[in-house]
Structures are given as structure tokens and as C-alpha cells.
């Protein structure tokens, strides 16, 4: 079980996580949204590290915060910014569309808070894979998933080829 000072840290970090996630969804500027998303990953990295899984933390940091943010930013740099009127119209639409989001979040939060004692969700992780090295987990225990991963990458490659190659071929 986590001790109390750790708990305080967790609450702070989780609030930060939520805050940057909401920021990433609500912000108007795509670039800032991408950076907010990277912030989500960074906070998540810290949480994972504190919870004792440094490997997952490293993956999260390098892939989600590093690689994906780089891809997002390079894609955004290829777009051109909208005019003032377009932006104003978008803003009105966004307010209309997302006004319920904070309300929903608060409701879910309150609901979870009330239901917490009966849910007993503070589960002490049943040590899966504890004691196994990463190689053993990946190549022995979950080798089928590695094959699956390869096939997903294959599908992704076809996706990129089909959707982004030969623009004139409409």
C-alpha cells in the first residue's frame, strides 16, 4: 500500500494529469493542444515511475511524449492558420458542443467519490509478471501479442501507403 505522503503526491499528479488532458481537448490552438498532450504523457511518466514500473515510464516518455509529439508538431507545421472569422465561428461551435463536458466530468467525479468505499477500487495489484524479466514477458509469455503487434504495424503501413500516396489518384 502507498504511504500517506505518496498519496498526497498521487493526488497532485493525478489532478495535473486531468488538468492537462482537459486542456488538450479544450484548447483552440492545435500546437498548444499537442504540447498539452505531451504534458499528459510526462505526468503519466512520473506516476508510472513512482508506482514502480520504470520500463513502462521510459516507453511512455520516449514514444508518447517524444515521438508522437514530434509527429503532431510536424503535421501542424504543414497546415495554414485559419482567418479570424473562421476562428470565431469555430469558438462558438466549440462552446456549444463542449459545454457539457466539464459538467459530465464533475458528475462522474462526484459519483465515484460517493461510491468509492463500496467499490473498493484501491486494488493492490496482484503481481502479474512480477519476477519475470522484460524479455521473458515479451518473448515467452506474450509472444502471440508480438505477432499481433507486427500485423498492426503492417496494417498501419498499408494505411499510410493507401491514404497518403498518389494524391492525384482520385
Amino acid at each position: 500500500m502507498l504511504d500517506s505522503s505518496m498519496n498526497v503526491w498521487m493526488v497532485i499528479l493525478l489532478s495535473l494529469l486531468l488538468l492537462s488532458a482537459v486542456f488538450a481537448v479544450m484548447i483552440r490552438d492545435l500546437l498548444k493542444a499537442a504540447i498539452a498532450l505531451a504534458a499528459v504523457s510526462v505526468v503519466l511518466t512520473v506516476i508510472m515511475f513512482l508506482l514502480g514500473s520504470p520500463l513502462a515510464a521510459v516507453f511512455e516518455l520516449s514514444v508518447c511524449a517524444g515521438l508522437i509529439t514530434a509527429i503532431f508538431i510536424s503535421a501542424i507545421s504543414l497546415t495554414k492558420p485559419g482567418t479570424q472569422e473562421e476562428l470565431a465561428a469555430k469558438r462558438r461551435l466549440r462552446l456549444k458542443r463542449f459545454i457539457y463536458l466539464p459538467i459530465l466530468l464533475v458528475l462522474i467525479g462526484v459519483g465515484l467519490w460517493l461510491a468509492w468505499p463500496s467499490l473498493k477500487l484501491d486494488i493492490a495489484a496482484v503481481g502479474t509478471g512480477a519476477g519475470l524479466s522484460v524479455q521473458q514477458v515479451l518473448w515467452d509469455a506474450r509472444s502471440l501479442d508480438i505477432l499481433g503487434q507486427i500485423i498492426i504495424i503492417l496494417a498501419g503501413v498499408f494505411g499510410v501507403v493507401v491514404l497518403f500516396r498518389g494524391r492525384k489518384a482520385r
Partner: protein
Amino acid sequence: MPALFLLIPLLGVIIINLPGRKIGNRMAVWAALAVAIIQIGMAVTSGSMVWQGLAQVVSLPFGASLQIDLFTAVVLATTGLIAAMSLILDKNAENPRSLYFGSLVLVTMMGMNGVVMVRDIFSLYVFLEITAVASFVLISINKERDPLEGAFKYFVMSAVATVLILAAIAILLLTVGSVGFKAVADNLSAGGVSPQVIVALILFIAGLSIKAGLIPFHAWLPDAYSSAPPAVSMLLAGIITKVTGVYTIMRLITDVFSISSIMKTAFMVLGAVSIVIGALAAMRQDDFKRMLAYSSISQVGYIILSAGLGTPLGFAAALLHFFNHATFKSLLFVNAAAVESRSGTRQMSRLGGLASKMPITGGTSVVGFLSTAGVPPLSGFWSKLLIVIALWQAGAYFYAVVAVLASILTLAYFLIMQRRVFFGKLREGLESIREAGAAAVVPSLILAGITVLVGLLFPLVLLLMQSQGLI
């Protein structure tokens, strides 16, 4: 042997992509077709001694994590069949992207084969994702506006489903400490159902219901089905949503979560609501494929209603309807493609009297819709009859009545469709229309043949089901 269902398509993808685009475009579809036919053969013979003998001589990887039982074998054979028909249908129109189409069909086959063979909820998730990613690309393969929009909707809804499923897996892993079907089931039966498990279950079922397109999780389905290229919408409606949504729900409620009375009610309500609302929505459609999409929602409702009953007969009836619906709905999608390619429109208000010009398409579509509506002696009649009997036996009289009455709705909207598209006076401007090409006629004849044969030879099917201990 199970690993072959993944490795052969993988080999197929590699082979058709090796020789370069020109040759690849010409041979891709045929090579993929060969893989699909091999799959049908392997699935049908999967219970035979030959494979068991071979397994003792050669040991393939992943033997422990992949398994085939009767349910799996039926779904594998259906997957091969529908994929083969879809590949033939692709030849109906000149497709400059055949190479990609063939490759992606093989990738979706790998995904679906994995989904039906794994016995582990995390691997299940991995293969669900493979199928989903390949489907997004397949829908938008021609880079046109509407399909891109349909694919995007599917993408977003699928992402929501993924989050729900992944959260459910995480909760189960934390509470149970394992992700294997058997380990989870053992733990659940030993430890009782805790609140966490109920939360996980609800999340899992909600995620899979999105994939199956059950009402109220169906928002993406009509757009994706109707906007996709013909061969793709047939693949989606015929098998992809069925494997990713319906099969997984059926598998999980039989193997992992032993069905409780609350779950039973939940599934039966989901199924019944989908049946009725899908049928009512189908009546109001003018777009041929959109109508078929709503009809699919309604028919999938039957499968879920019957499977949710939790009795052996209910499960057998659901399995039979799974196969039947895959064949006759694919048949109707082939015919929709044939009509669209010849007349250039899917709007039923602009069609009419095509039966005289397209006799095969018109005739097979009568077979398809009568079977969907459950008219004897076609295959759909028998599976619906079994569903109603199963409901009645279990004392679910209300649902039995709903199932029967909804058949009348089904008959109604298909009669409207048939009258507006095929019967009546030939519309002006359609005089020069001809029967569709072999690429559309051949699959529709094969599928109509299966629908009729399963119906006529049903005593044999029943004997087979009995010998396998299904009923």
C-alpha cells in the same frame, strides 16, 4: 494447426507485395482468394484426424495460446467464405488499387482469425485492433469524401470502444491477476462477483456493443456501411462487425463471465431493442445500402437476443443465425453493388423494374430477403425458428413474440425494397441496363445457393449440430 490461420495470410501478404505494383495489382486478388479458399478448407476439416496427426509431427508456434473448437471453426469458415466472395466482387469494377485491397483483406482476415482463436482477453484486444485498423483503411481505400467521413466516424467510435475494453482488461488484470479466459473464469467462480468485476463487465460489453453496432451504440454503422466501396461494405456487414462484436460477446459470456440473470436481461433488452428499432429505421431509408445496414442491426439483435438467453439451444440458434445472416446479408450487399454499378445510383426512389433487365440479381435478392424475413424453407427460417423455440422454452414469451412480430417488419421493409428496385414498371432512363458482370453474379449465385441448400438440407444440419452436442 491454429497458427496456420495466421501464418498463411501473412505469407500471402508478403508474396503479393514482393513482385512490385504492376504485377501485384493483377494477381493480388487471386492470391488472396486462394488464401481464403484454403482457409475454408482448413476450417471445415479442422476437427479431422489429419490435423491432429500432423500436430504430433510438426509443432508450430503459439500452439498453447490459440485454440479451435466448433464455434471457432464455424466462424473461421464463414470468414473465409465472405472474404472470398468480397474478393470476387472487387473484380466487378476496375480497381486500380487491387494490390492494397487484396493485402488489406488478408490483414483483416488475420485479425479476425486471431480474434476467434485466442483464449486470452489481452490478445483478444490486440487482434480486435488489427481488424479495426485494417477496416478503417479498407473503407477509405478510394480516398473519396463520403467513405473518409464514414471511416472517420468508425475510427472515433472504435477508439471509444478501445478505451472501454482496455479499461475493462486493466480492472480484470488487477483483480484477478491474469488475462487468460480460463484463469479469469476460475477466479470469478471461486471469488464471487465483486463490484470491480461488474464495472469491468459493463465496460467490456459496452465496448463490444459499439463494435457490433447494437442500438444505442450504432451511430457509426449506417455511414460506414453505406459509404464504403461495395466489396468492403459486404465484408464489413457480412463478417467484420460480426466477429469483432457479436462473436466476442458470445465467446466472453460462455467462456469467461458465466451468465447471470442481470446480464441475461441486459443482453435480451439490447437485442430486442436493436431488432425493433433497426427494422423500423430500415423502413424509412431510401438508400439501398443504408437500408441493408439498418437491417443488419436488426438481425444482429436476433443473434444477441438468442445468445443472451444463456441456454444451449439459444446458443446453437445464435450460432446458426450468425452463419445464415453472414451469407444472406452478404448476398444482398452483392446485389446492391450490382444494381449500383449498373444504374449508377443507390436511391431506391430512382430505381424500379430492374428484375426484367437483371433477372439473376433480382431473383437472388428475392432469396436473400425472404431468408432474412424468415420465410420457409430458406436458411433464415430455420435459425429464426430455433431462436423463437429457444426463447419459448426458456419462458421468455414476451421476447419470443417480439422476435416473431419483428419478422413481419422485416418482410415489410424488404417487400418495399423489392418493389421499388426490382418489380413494377421499368423507370425511364434504365432501358439500356444489362445484367451485372460475372464478378457480381457469381458470388450472388453461390451465396443464394448456400441459403437455399442450408434451408432445404436443414435436417442434415440439425443432425450435424446434434452430433456435435450443440443441441
